[in-house]
C-alpha cells in the first residue's frame, strides 16, 4: 500500500462486526425488518446486496478518483453515485437473467429494491469520505456485505422462532423486532474492542 490508512484487516473486521451496517450505522433497515422472515430469503437478499455493493464500490471509487477529484466536483458525488447504482442494478439484473436463470429466480424480486437500499449508497459514501484506495474500497464493500448478510440471517432465524412465541399483543410484529435488534446491537457493541 502506497497510501497510509487503516490496514485491510482492520477495515474488514470493522465493517463486518464493529461498525456493522445495520446495528451500528442503521443502514438497510427496510430489508432487515421486511425481508428477514425466512432464512432462504435472507440469504438471497444478502447475496444480492453484497454483489451490488461490491460492483458499485469499484465503479464509484473509479469515478471518484479519476473524474470527480481531478475536475474538483466532489460535491456532485450524491447525484453521480445514485445514478451509477441505479444503472448498475439494472445491468446486473439483465446480466444475471441472461447467464444464470436459477440465480435470477432466487434473487429476482430483490434486485430492483436494492436501488433505494441505503446500505449500498452508504458504503460508497463511506469509501469516499474515508478516501479509501481501490483495494480498501473493495474490502470495505465486501465486509459491509458480509456483515449485512450475517445480520439478515441471524434476524430471520430469530424471527422464525418468534412466530411460535407468546408475545404480548401490542408488541407483536415490528415492536418486538426492534427490541431484538436492540439486544443484538448491544451484543455487537462487545466487538468494539477488536479494532
Amino acid at each position, binding site marked *: 500500500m502506497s497510501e497510509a490508512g487503516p490496514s485491510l484487516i482492520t477495515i474488514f473486521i470493522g465493517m463486518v462486526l464493529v461498525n456493522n451496517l445495520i*446495528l*451500528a*450505522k*442503521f*443502514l*438497510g*433497515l*427496510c430489508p432487515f*425488518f421486511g425481508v428477514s422472515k425466512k432464512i432462504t430469503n435472507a440469504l438471497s437478499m444478502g447475496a444480492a446486496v453484497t454483489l451490488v455493493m461490491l460492483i458499485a464500490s469499484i465503479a464509484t471509487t473509479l469515478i471518484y478518483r479519476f473524474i470527480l477529484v481531478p475536475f474538483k466536483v466532489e*460535491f*456532485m*458525488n*450524491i*447525484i453521480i453515485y*445514485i*445514478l451509477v447504482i*441505479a444503472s448498475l442494478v439494472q445491468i446486473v439484473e439483465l446480466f444475471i437473467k441472461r447467464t444464470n436463470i436459477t440465480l435470477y429466480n432466487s434473487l429476482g424480486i430483490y434486485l430492483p429494491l436494492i436501488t*433505494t*437500499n*441505503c446500505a449500498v*449508497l*452508504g458504503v460508497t*459514501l*463511506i469509501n469516499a*469520505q474515508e478516501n479509501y484506495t481501490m483495494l480498501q474500497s473493495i474490502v470495505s464493500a465486501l465486509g459491509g456485505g458480509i456483515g449485512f448478510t450475517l445480520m439478515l440471517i441471524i434476524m430471520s432465524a430469530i424471527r422464525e422462532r418468534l412466530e411460535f412465541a407468546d408475545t*404480548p*399483543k*401490542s*408488541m*407483536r*410484529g*415490528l*415492536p*418486538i*423486532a*426492534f*427490541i431484538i*435488534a*436492540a*439486544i443484538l*446491537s*448491544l451484543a455487537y*457493541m462487545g466487538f468494539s474492542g477488536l479494532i
Partner: protein
Amino acid sequence: MIEKQERLTAKKFWQELAKGIVITNPVFVLVLGLCPTLAVSNSLNNALGMSAGVIFVLLGSNIIISLLRKITPNLVRIPVFIVVIATFVTILSLVFEAYLPPLYESLGIYLPLIVVNCIILGRAEVFASKNSVTLSIADAFGVGFGFTIALIIVAFFRELLGTGGLEVFGKQLFSIPVLAESPMSIFIMPPGAFIVLGLLLAFFRMIGVLKHE
C-alpha cells in the same frame, strides 16, 4: 362558484396537511425512513437539523415533480424523481456545509443519505406525480411535520435518558439532578435507538392510536 372551488381546495389543503402528520405518520404508522430516524435521533439538535433538511428536500422535490408530472414519460419517472431529489439533497448539503458546519459534521453521511429516504421517493411516486402543486405542497408539509414530530419524540427520550437533560442549539433547557450525574448513556448509543422506537411503536399500538398488524 369560483369562490366555492377555492374554499374546497383550501379545505383539502388542510386535510392533506393533517393526514400526513397524524393518520399516515411516515415513521410511526408507515414505518418508513427508519435509517435517519434511528441514526440522528441521539440529540434534539440533530433531530431538528435532519427534519429541516427532509422538509426542504420534500418540499422542493414535491413542487418540481408535480410541475413536471404532465411531461414526464411514465417509463422513466423513477430516474427523473431520483435526479430531482438528488439535486435538492446536493443543494442542502452544500448549504449546511457552508452555514452550519457543526450540524453538517454531526449528521455525517446521513445528510447525503436523504436521497434514498423512502419517505421522499414514496411521496413523489404516490402523491406529487398525480396531484396539483398546491396539494403537493400541503402533502410535503404534512408528511414533513409528521416526520419531524416522530423524530423529536424519539430524540426527546433518547437525549433525556442518555444525557440526563435536554439541550437545544447550545442552550440547556433543563437537567434532571441524579440522572445527569450518571446518565444511561446506552440510550444515545445505537441499541438505545432500537429500544426507544420499539417501545414507542408498542405504546402507540397499546393505547390504540395505531392498528395492530
